[in-house]
């Protein structure tokens, strides 16, 4: 269940972004979860649903895109989907591969909302999402 600690890390980063951009609310968080990230997307979502209310985030703010594992062959340059975690080039059977996607959890983007252009962020709103480090 390390999904909880990853979501905790995600929320910390999102909060830093919100403060850095003087926004009062986080509308959406877009995350890509790779097939070999070692993260179960459903558990990631449920960890988010569990932790988000504590930082005044709507549980519907999280958008997860699952990313297939793909690699490129260093010998023949073929790019292919790694099926059943078999790291062998289907073209030349070489095992010298570079994984090009699907190994990590990536924070793709964050949608933020500001009260109005040019005005400073409300201090109270600024505090709403501040979380103490565990």
């Amino acid at each position, binding site marked *: 269940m390390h999904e909880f600690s990853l979501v905790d890390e995600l929320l910390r980063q999102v909060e830093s972004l919100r403060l850095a*951009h003087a926004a009062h609310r986080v509308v959406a968080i877009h995350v890509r979860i790779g097939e070999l990230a070692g993260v179960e997307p459903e558990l990631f979502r449920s960890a988010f649903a569990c932790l988000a209310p504590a930082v005044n985030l709507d549980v519907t703010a999280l958008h997860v895109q699952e990313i297939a594992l793909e690699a490129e062959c260093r010998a023949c340059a073929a790019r292919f989907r790694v099926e059943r975690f078999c790291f062998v080039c289907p073209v030349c059977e070489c095992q010298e591969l570079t994984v090009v996607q699907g190994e990590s959890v990536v924070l793709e983007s964050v949608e933020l909302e500001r009260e109005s252009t040019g005005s400073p962020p409300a201090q109270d709103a600024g505090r709403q999402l501040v979380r103490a480090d565990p």
Partner: protein
Amino acid sequence: MTQQTIAVNQDIQAQRRAAAAAFRARMSAHGTLVVHLLSSPGAGKTALLEAAARELGRSHKLAVLVGDIATDRDAERLAPWAPAVQITTGGACHLELLLVEKALEQLGGRDLHFLFVEDVGNLVCPASHDLGEHLRVLLLSTTEGDDKPGKYPKAFRTSQSLVLSKIDLLPHVPFSMAAAIADARRIQPQLAVFPVCALDGRGVAEWCQYLIRQRDQLLTLAGGP
């Protein structure tokens, strides 16, 4: 109200990875090879470390940080052979770098040749956490079945060394070493494989020699002592 989309496109573990890389660099500078052990519960991590500590301890300084959910039994077992600090995770299923750094502080200033970090018995979560190790070693015991690699690809993909433990039980269990090694190498072709029996010592010296070579390489790269 105005809305703004901030593009980030960054691995959410990037900061942790950077912290792990910094820890690794510090340990390299001290000439300490950090070895992270992963396995299912009961595969024999502590038994392997007891055997390795007896072997390596004659010529090298080593210490063990051992993760467990609830008890300090593993540290007690290791204490006769090497300084050991138990990291009790209180229910957490894996170790994190912060816990390792705190436990290392408890050990005090020691010029170690090897620091072993035994993770909580689990082949899922620990695989996703870089503890600042130079070497990740995965133990697979003959009692677990030779089809484990394909079931836990992340753990095998991120390891450099595979120890096949409890080989004394091979005559009694339906475990094919060849099948297990082939399955593991489909996931990670570079795996260095060591069949070991920690109880009678078979394979332990070979694994320790491998660790010494890995440390020699580290020292060469670091231009160190």
